[in-house]
């Protein structure tokens, strides 16, 4: 690697749908000379308007949205990491945020901060990602960057400060005034590639001076030297201002705001300067791994190329030459020929080919050092796996994977699709542990499971687009669960004497609810009532019962089994007999422990213009929703509610028609809660019908 770690920027570009992320990314790649032509997302003939960016990328033979695209700007090496555009909770979104050191938050100068921007920004906050903002589309009618800056402060709580003011807005948008250099920047050439720096237009001088004062006022808190220079009314060096802004940005106490119009080729180069100047290099960021030997205790990683290696496989891509595994090295360095350990599987992995991805090509490299991003060829692993030097037991991701809350049956439309579905599913489950697939033994259908309707829709769409697998989908099904609500005792004898060796096992104890746990087994048998060697078989027997509850055949959770007595027979007892005894005991005691059904509850946040607040609340209420509250934010309201997932299917269409398409909502899994009695009865009826049907 030629680069110095100080000049590395691993960034994400996060944006609300339709705020111009694709156009901005494309302009960045053009100005950094990674691509040599600019195409419009929305072509004049209207063809582009219906195409989404992925298809557009394919058509052009480039991967501007590949997992990590490398480009260079002013001696800085910038890796642009793809942050998935959808906001359903997936491990994939969280994982890509982990890999970033900084981000550019793109906002539309007309739409401003919308609900999706709020969700993405919260995720970034959780991962402590420093951000700079870019207010795009200043050429659009209704553009108002000052309002967006206000929203950044009020809605997102950023200490947002303008680095620029626009030279003209809407149709008159010419460029920007740089408030540090106090120069007017205009963009000329066929694609705005020539940046002209000139005097500030006369009519903007007063505003520019005022805004510069505001900027200095906001950033001086981060530099004593700058404060001194301001107080002494000395000439203020640009270096001092940049240093103060960088300091504020890195501590996430300041968000510098740039502006322009990527589509009209204005303001992108100063934004790239901002990325290089203000966003952190890998060494500025504190990274932690989880010590698997000590209950996932956090361990700080050092960006030292000589330390033992720790690297995260954050994305898999099916390429022309097989599986490409994108990795980020957090500690040490990974070189060709090294042998590392995959922490999840414990397998040794020999590093073969190492590459670095450019927009449309790849370059073979010898090693990847701490802080850098690269890709491996020919390594069999799953997304999220950690590779470490032998002797280390550190994982970059928790082994905890939330259970899916929704499932969907998929049926291939033709034979060709059948083959491709298998390939696609094989890849998706490797990429995303929250996505699962299996074949239902009873119906023979292929079932996919995930964390929300949109989560599954994305994968169905990807099957169609990337694997040419056309599928029909069934109605989404909610993953209900069963649990018990009270303690109940059991004393069960399994006895079988039908010729040959008999079976005997007696188990006694109780089951009780244990909220927040899946299954707990406690052995309190004393005096050898059950010989020790049979205890694991008893535990296994109970555990196997958890997969399908006797009540409705949903998975059972939150059960503690305490075994305190039993009996065995010197000849007839065996592992099999005790396992059967445990299963029999569970079937027998379960009903007395008052089982109930739990359903996934989603946290739903709707952002709507005030005039629709009432009808939106009504629509949420009708869905067995519990409205937690409403937040008035001037012309918009944000409504927060907790709603059963089963009631949320198709809500986006309902919301659109209720609000003339002006409201938006986000949804994420919150908790499991007991279903009301009438729903439980309905479910029982349906389950009985299905059973009959299958029989």
């Amino acid at each position, binding site marked *: 690697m030629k680069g110095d770690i100080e000049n590395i920027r691993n960034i994400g570009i996060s944006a609300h749908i339709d705020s111009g992320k694709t156009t901005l990314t494309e302009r960045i790649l053009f100005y950094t000379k990674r691509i040599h032509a600019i195409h419009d997302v929305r072509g004049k003939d209207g063809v582009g308007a219906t195409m989404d960016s992925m298809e557009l990328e394919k058509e052009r033979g480039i991967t501007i949205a590949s997992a990590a695209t490398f480009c260079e700007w002013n001696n800085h090496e910038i890796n642009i990491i793809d942050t998935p555009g959808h906001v359903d909770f997936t491990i994939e979104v969280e994982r890509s945020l982990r890999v970033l050191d900084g981000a550019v938050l793109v906002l539309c100068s007309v739409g401003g901060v919308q609900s999706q921007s709020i969700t993405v920004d919260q995720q970034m906050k959780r991962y402590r990602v420093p951000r700079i903002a870019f207010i795009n589309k200043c050429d659009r009618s209704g553009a108002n960057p000052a309002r967006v800056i206000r929203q950044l402060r009020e809605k997102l709580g950023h200490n947002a400060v303008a680095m620029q003011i626009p030279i003209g807005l809407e149709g008159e948008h010419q460029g920007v005034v740089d408030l540090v250099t106090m120069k007017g920047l205009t963009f000329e050439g066929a694609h705005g590639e020539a940046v002209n720096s000139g005097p500030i237009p006369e009519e903007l001088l007063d505003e520019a001076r005022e805004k510069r004062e505001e900027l200095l006022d906001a950033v001086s808190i981060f530099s004593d030297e700058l404060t001194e220079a301001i107080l002494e009314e000395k000439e203020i060096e640009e270096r001092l201002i940049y240093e103060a802004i960088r300091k504020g940005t890195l501590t996430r106490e300041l968000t510098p705001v740039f502006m322009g119009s990527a589509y009209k080729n204005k303001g992108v180069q100063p934004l790239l300067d901002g990325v290089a100047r203000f966003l952190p290099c890998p060494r500025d960021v504190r990274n932690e791994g989880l010590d698997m030997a000590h209950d996932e205790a956090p361990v700080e990683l050092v960006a030292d190329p000589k330390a033992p290696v720790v690297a995260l496989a954050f994305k898999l891509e099916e390429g022309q030459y097989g599986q490409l595994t994108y990795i980020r090295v957090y500690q040490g360095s990974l070189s060709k020929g090294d042998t590392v350990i995959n922490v999840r599987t414990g397998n040794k992995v020999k590093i073969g080919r190492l590459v670095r991805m450019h927009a449309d090509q790849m370059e073979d490299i010898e090693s990847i050092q701490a802080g850098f991003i690269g890709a491996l060829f020919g390594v069999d692993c799953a997304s999220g796996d950690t590779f470490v030097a032998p002797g280390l037991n550190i994982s970059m991701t928790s082994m905890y994977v939330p259970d899916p809350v929704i499932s969907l049956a998929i049926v291939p439309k033709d034979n060709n699709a059948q083959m491709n579905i298998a390939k696609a599913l094989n890849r998706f489950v490797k990429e995303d542990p929250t996505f699962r697939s299996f074949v239902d033994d009873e119906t023979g259908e292929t079932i996919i499971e995930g964390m929300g309707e949109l989560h599954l829709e994305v994968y169905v769409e990807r099957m169609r687009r990337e694997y040419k697998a056309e599928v029909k989908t069934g109605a989404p099904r909610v993953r209900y669960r069963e649990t018990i609500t009270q303690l109940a005792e059991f004393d069960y004898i399994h006895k079988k004497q039908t010729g040959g060796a008999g079976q005997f096992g007696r188990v006694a104890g109780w089951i009780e609810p244990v909220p927040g746990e899946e299954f707990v087994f406690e052995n309190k048998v004393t005096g050898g009532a059950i010989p020790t060697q049979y205890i694991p078989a008893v535990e296994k027997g109970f555990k196997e019962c958890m997969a399908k509850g006797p009540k409705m055949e949903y998975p059972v959770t939150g059960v503690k089994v305490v075994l305190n007595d039993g009996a065995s027979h010197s000849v007839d007892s065996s592992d099999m007999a005790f396992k059967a005894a445990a299963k029999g005991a569970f079937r027998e005691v379960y009903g007395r422990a008052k089982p109930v059904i739990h359903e996934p509850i989603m946290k739903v946040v709707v952002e709507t213009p005030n005039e629709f607040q009432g009808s939106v609340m009504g629509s949420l209420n009708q869905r067995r929703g519990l409205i937690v509250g409403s937040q*008035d934010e001037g012309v918009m309201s944000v409504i927060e509610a907790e709603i059963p997932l089963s009631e949320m299917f198709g809500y986006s269409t309902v919301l659109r028609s209720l609000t003339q398409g002006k409201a938006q909502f986000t949804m994420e899994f919150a908790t499991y809660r007991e279903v009301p009695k009438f729903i439980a009865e309905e479910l029982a009826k349906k389950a009985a019908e299905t059973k009959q049907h299958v029989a």
Partner: protein
Amino acid sequence: MLKKDLILRNPLKLIGTDEALLQSGAFCAVTARAGVGKTAFLVQIALYNQLRGKNVLHISLTDPVRKVDLWYREVFRRLSEKYRVQPMDHLWEEILPHRFIMTFRVEGFSAPILEERLNNLSEQGIFSPRLIIIDGLPFDKDLGPQLSGLKQFCRENDFQVWFTVRTHRHEDPGPDGVPVPLAPVFDLFDVVLQLQPEGQEIHVNALKGANSDTKELSILLDPSTMLLLDS
């Protein structure tokens, strides 16, 4: 401990502000300096009302919905721990539907807006409060007309309202002990309680209504848990 016991252990009954004693449209206030525990105090009033199945509307002019919700969760958790309520989750889920949080910007809040929002909620059968909590109303501004309008609306709808009133260290109370920000609208209030830090304790004093004959009520706010205790 059962829900019933938790209600019986309610130290607020010592204040004598049980709603049966108050007329419809009653205004109550809790005054203190910033950070002494006004919100925690009112959240406890809200929680005890929710436990008795009464609907509470919590209006915050300073915090977002999530933060207000967090206040409730935290105070409820502490109450449950203190009185060993089991199972805590069930009781929380039982009382949750009795609460609705609304947040407004200070400049966006007024009696007509509140009226419009509440009518909307009750017409659709979503929520009808009995008790309203208003946290963060700036009493250092002229609130006379706004509060009079609000009082009228609350009287018509039989709501009881609790306000937080922030006082300042640099402002001495009037000769009758009334905090300066509350003085211009003192007449509109039926009950005024003051949280007064003294050493390691926070005393609850009655400035008006309640058991104000005794002035110092036999109730304390524990600064470490922000829970109300019998002294």
